[in-house]
């Protein structure tokens, strides 16, 4: 019937950009990013990373419709910075912290395996 196609969750529609930016015309230093094929998994994480930056005045995300696979990420910064710089910072922080987490987990698991020997 009107069931959305499964592949729509990860296949980008033709002519649509994965990541695009629209500058806010009324508020200075504010912009809305549209990220296709993403959900709360990434949205909430980016929001948190953005809010931890003291140059960011506002960061929030929404998924306007549950059947449409894109999210809107709105960022406003202080005049010394820009929304895109803030998002870039958030992404590079994310890359680094996830790498740290990966190392920590691997280290811990290798310790467990050698101690118990038989596990997995």
């Amino acid at each position, binding site marked *: 019937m009107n069931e959305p196609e*499964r*592949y729509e*969750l*990860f296949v980008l529609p033709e002519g649509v950009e*994965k*990541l695009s*930016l629209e*500058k806010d*015309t*009324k*508020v*200075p*230093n504010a*912009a809305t990013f549209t*990220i296709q094929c993403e959900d*709360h*998994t*990434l949205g*909430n*994480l980016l*929001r*948190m990373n953005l*809010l*931890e*930056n*003291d140059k960011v*005045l506002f960061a929030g995300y929404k998924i306007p419709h549950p059947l449409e696979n894109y999210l809107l990420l709105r960022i406003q910064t*202080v*005049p010394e910075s*820009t*929304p*895109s*710089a803030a*998002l*870039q910072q958030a*992404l*590079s*922080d*994310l*890359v*680094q*912290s*996830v*790498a*740290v*987490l*990966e190392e*920590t*987990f*691997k*280290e*811990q*698991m290798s310790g*467990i395996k050698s101690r*118990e020997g038989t*596990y*997995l």
Partner: protein
Amino acid sequence: MSGKDVATKMKTRVILGEDRILHGSSFDAPTSFASVGVENGLNVEKFTEEVKVEVNDVSEDGNDLVFELSGVDAPLANTLRRILLSEVPTMAIEIAEFRDNTSVIQDEVFAHRLGLVPIKADPAFFETHVSGNEHTPENTLIFDLNVKCFRDINNEVVNSKVFASALVWTPFGEQAERFAENPPQVVHPDILLAKLAPGQRIDVRCYVTKGVGKVHAKWSPVATASYRLLPEPVIVAQPKSEEASRIAQTCPTKVFDIEDSGELVVARPRQCTMCRECIRPPPDAQHSAHGVYTPAVELRRVKTHFIFSVESTGILPPDRLVRDAIGVLKDRALFYAELFDQKDFEEHMAAASHSDGDDDASDDETKPMLE
């Protein structure tokens, strides 16, 4: 308590009262507690310092893993949980070709049951099959199920039950050599798939492809993946011995112990289910002058300490799943970081502001409000 202590407590603990929950939400903004001198922003150095993983328990069959992840914020823990449920790839039956089905179970119902059978095959060895494309040995495994129910010479019914073990791997192309050491098979051979009467037969060819749980739950690698916050019951005022033994006895999960000295101690905080029995006023409670009962125990949870529990379906070991999940998140972050470098958003922003003639004026008007 100084303002700083109060702020730190608000930031890091959820407090359960008798009739309310305090500080349940997180304080994201770096300036939330600036007035009392508590830093709230998180940077990578601080994260590196604080993040900790500790493995608590691995079940005997190796399929359940309980580990503690501390020093991270809720969104990161939740992202990991969501990725475990819906974005770590596995192999599952996607297409079932029926050659014969004379049983009472309909083709489509049986096909659905087949899809949910966990197939033990490492998804890392396969490419994702795009629907409509050709099946190749690199993206597809083939399993055949051919069962006929009949009466043998002793008039005993044979094959009246079809179990998952009837799914037999048929090597496709070079796969016989590739997977000689570790042949793909079903995880649980004892899943009942259908029942047959003598003379009935099911003959199906199944195409197993790689996918993720957000497309269909059959590809989800976990039975469940969940976390809870670390419980932290604290004795704020040592109660009298009668009260102490009452608290220790009423606790259904036996969190508290009474020392030889008669002192109440928190012995097993991780067993606490936050039932709040220990902070409920007893019928003969001693109320203060204002009619307020002050419990001896304060129930808290640590906001940045997550007790993760990952139950694998048996396809992959749970530690591998968590590593895969972290890998998926890392790839995603790298993908966007690189995508970002390719785009020139700074220029786009600048161009947009130059094209507006009166933009500078409006900027000046709003600036003071921001500072």
